[in-house]
């Protein structure tokens, strides 16, 4: 479990442990996941893929549920877009 993975969240490097989800990387970066339709910052609610609050863009693909995707080396994550 000591293995770690480096990804980038909004261009800034973040290191998480192997097996961590993208949601964890976003939270670790200190930012929030998305901006709601009325402009509020949002972060994960359910942690299990049902609430869709943790949506971010991963490697250019928008609207991914970050709690359902495992981090891979050098992933580019855009949060709060």
């Amino acid at each position: 479990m000591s293995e770690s993975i480096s990804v980038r969240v909004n261009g800034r490097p973040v290191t998480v442990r192997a097996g961590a989800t993208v949601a964890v990387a976003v939270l670790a970066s200190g930012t929030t996941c998305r901006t709601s339709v009325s402009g509020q910052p949002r972060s994960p609610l359910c942690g299990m893929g049902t609430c869709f609050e943790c949506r971010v863009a991963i490697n250019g693909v928008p609207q991914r549920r970050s709690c359902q995707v495992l981090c891979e080396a050098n992933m580019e994550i855009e949060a709060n877009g």
Partner: protein
Amino acid sequence: MDSVKHLRFDVIVVGAGPAGIAAALAAADSGKSVGLIDDNPTAGGQIWRGSQSAPRKSASSIWFNRLRKSAVQIIGGARVFHAANGELAAESDDSAIQITYGKLIIATGARELFLPFPGWTLPNVMGTGGLQALLKSGLEIAGKRVVIAGTGPLLLAVAAYARKCGAKVLGICEQTTRPRMVGFGMKMLLVRGKAPEVLRFAYDLRGIPHWTDCWPVAAFGNRRVESVRISRQGLTSEIECDYLACGFHLIPNSELPRMCGCRLQQGFVQVDEYQQTSVAGTFCAGEPTGIGGLELALAEGEIAGYAATNWEDRAKHLFAKRARYQKVVGILKDAFPLRPELKNLARPDTLVCRCEDVPHVRLCEHSSWRAAKLHARCGMGPCQGRVCAPAAEFLFGWEIDSVRPPVFPVRCSSLAAIRSHSAAPRN
């Protein structure tokens, strides 16, 4: 356009939590082809999330070892979005998947019930199961101040887990009454095999304040939660915190069984003694048939797996085990009924639908879930009402009746890919 994978199984199991894993393994005993499909990237569901890589021997490791050695084909990271005419349609990251099957076992588990209160949309206010899932997925919480609130045994499990991860758990706010909570503990001690678990929680939670008749009234913070105001036996107080984990027990994931036409009673899938639903050849196991926890889910899963492969004798052997743990369903129901005060937490401007940002006041204008959807866009966002519909059901007493394919937002290319086949959505 995405590629389409065509798969065919004698038995397909939807949901790779404990019930689904048990069902798939039991079905595979017959030598028939078995598929196990789940939205999550890895098997385990919520309760066994991340357990596959757990270094030490746990109850789950026996099941995971059996799964690894079995012929069960696991399809991870794939969402089932439609079911019709003996076929399932699913979508993974890179393809649409069409699955034909002989028998279907639904083991879609449960999710948390969330109730709106001012500030519940702030970042770092999350479900109790939500916090646990994130911790199991690698969230670092050492030294952080956490308040756990809501109702149900999950509060205790998550408080214990968060503490083990190094969090400062400031308190557990349980909305049920003290007598009900004590009764719950006593009754669970008497369920065979449960006493060690109850005592372990009591030990793990020592020193953490556990308040009954207590619930969150509002959360405050600038861009993330900084404090929570709680009502405790009629008095309010404020607690500064970094995380507020709040969930009001569990509700079944019944979208798929509803879409398959399975009969439900009071929100739960009706099954016969072999876990078969009202639809012949479609079985259901675990939380969608009644919230009863791990052991019941395992027993129901095995029964469903054996019954789906016409191995009734083996299924029958598990009836007594299932009956033993079925008691837990009633114990939970008695212990954690939601109190009416929780209906008054939302203010007019408190959002109920988090996808479309629909405030409570906009729902008060309507008299049904359907009207609220059509006129206020409540439940019309990507979660498709999975969060706000159960809340609206509790707040307004509305019947939530509509399930339409696709039950998950999918790529147009996935819809197009299955369009020419019978499983293509009609709506």
